[in-house]
């Protein structure tokens, strides 16, 4: 039992088993999401919960990140006399990376863990079994609406995060660093390309899928009791956050390769 090779083997096997289970689950949910029937009421309800109610937290995060980003770029740029590039780099960093990443990370906490706790509580109180006995598939009634809502609303949240993030940078630059407001905004708008925005939006769609699937998956597997549900919430938050960051890197590499 204490043979280190055995431990490595067991950990590796269980890791692959987990990846397999998660992939099968994701496939099931995605299939349910794109085939009828759709519970429209549930989809709208989840869009409001996942999308609309996340606006404050996403906006607050974005404004502070944008502000800190502008300060640091100013500080770094001034060493080479390149302070004037603050608006360019702020808008590039936010639209290609930080807008999507910040939104993804905040929603890994707010949404993924919330879904896991809710579904987990439904699992342990037999509500999911009850759904099945009432001829409603949990895939279609519970998971697909959350998946669709997250995939649809995350890009919208990222657009909001981009705008508010740039505003954070603008606030610091104009009121703290002595930039001219008009010049700052003109530089921002002239510099950013459609592709930069698109990159963030593509990431957002993927992050939305990760966040919803992870929450549903951990909730569905939740063990009984307050500990089990708490564990499901923790695992989904950690899992979703790590996957968001990992896939962000993969996508960034890919986009640089193909010149997007």
């Amino acid at each position: 039992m204490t043979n280190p090779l055995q431990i490595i083997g067991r950990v590796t096997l269980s890791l692959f088993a987990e990846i397999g289970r998660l992939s099968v689950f994701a496939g099931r949910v995605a299939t349910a999401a794109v085939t009828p029937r759709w519970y429209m009421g549930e989809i709208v309800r989840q869009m409001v919960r996942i999308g609309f109610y996340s606006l404050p937290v996403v906006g607050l995060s974005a404004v502070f990140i944008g502000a800190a980003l502008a300060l640091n770029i100013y500080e770094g740029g001034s060493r080479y006399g390149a302070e004037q590039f603050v608006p360019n780099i702020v808008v590039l960093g936010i639209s290609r990376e930080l807008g999507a990443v910040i939104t993804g990370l905040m929603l890994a906490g707010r949404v993924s863990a919330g879904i896991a706790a809710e579904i987990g509580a439904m699992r342990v109180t037999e509500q999911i079994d009850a759904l099945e006995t009432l001829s409603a598939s949990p895939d279609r009634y519970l998971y697909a609406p959350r998946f669709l809502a997250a995939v649809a609303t995350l890009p919208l949240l990222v657009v909001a995060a981009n705008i508010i993030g740039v505003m954070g940078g603008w606030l610091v630059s104009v009121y703290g660093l002595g930039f001219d407001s008009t010049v700052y905004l003109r530089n921002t708008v002239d510099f950013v390309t459609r592709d930069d925005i698109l990159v963030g939006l593509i990431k957002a769609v993927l992050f939305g899928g990760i966040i919803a699937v992870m929450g549903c998956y951990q909730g569905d597997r939740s063990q009984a009791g307050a500990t089990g549900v708490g564990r499901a919430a923790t695992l989904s938050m950690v899992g979703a956050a790590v996957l968001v960051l990992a896939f962000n890197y993969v996508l960034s590499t890919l986009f640089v390769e193909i010149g997007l």
Partner: protein
Amino acid sequence: MNMPLLKLDGVDKAFGAKRVLRGVSLDVARGQSLVVIGGSGSGKSVMLKNALGLMTPDQGKIFFDGEDVTNATGRAREKMRARIGMLFQSGALFDSLTVWENVAFRLINSEGMSRRDAKQCAIETLKKVRLGADVAGLYPAEISGGMQKRVALARAITSEPDLIFFDEPTTGLDPITADAINDLILEMVRGLGAAAVTITHDMASARKIADEIAMLFEGKIIWRGQAADVMNSGNAYVDQFVNGRADGPIQPAI
């Protein structure tokens, strides 16, 4: 003799090394009320979940109305579920929906009834379990445990099933509420002409609602007979259980 409505034939189910069901065979006729008794951990709930198709047996077969539904999927499973009602131990009401939306859940979401008609139906069904229209708009968390059980019962009978499963219907209720639930179960089962399978360890409830009683012990049915005979079954295990004695052939589960 008619074909049984539900038949379990040699059902085995194990979780890892723990064999919970070891060849359970059981049949229920139309309109019959069968109560399955057994101690904690004897496999009653697992048996029920296998019969409902929420779990798949490792071995053995399950027949519903003559059809093999052991591995049924999709439409075949839906067809079977449409004829079965289930009362969960905890009620398992959807806490994001109101009482009437819970009761009308199948009507709205599976049978495509309009919300207005479904609400009328739900209020009618609530009346049968002695609940007024005033609770229809409340959420499950806003009503008492006994009322939740009644709402869950209403949900199980809304679409007039041929077979109803009751998972420990009286657990967690005071004796008077429990007896009221027993009366309601009898009334619903008789009124609908439905068959009922109840699992419980509440002997008062078992004697009241059963036509026949079967005892599950260590994953097998070890005795089955008329409800009236359960107190003098001549089976040492049944005797110990129905009299609630700690000493006997069954070791207490502590």
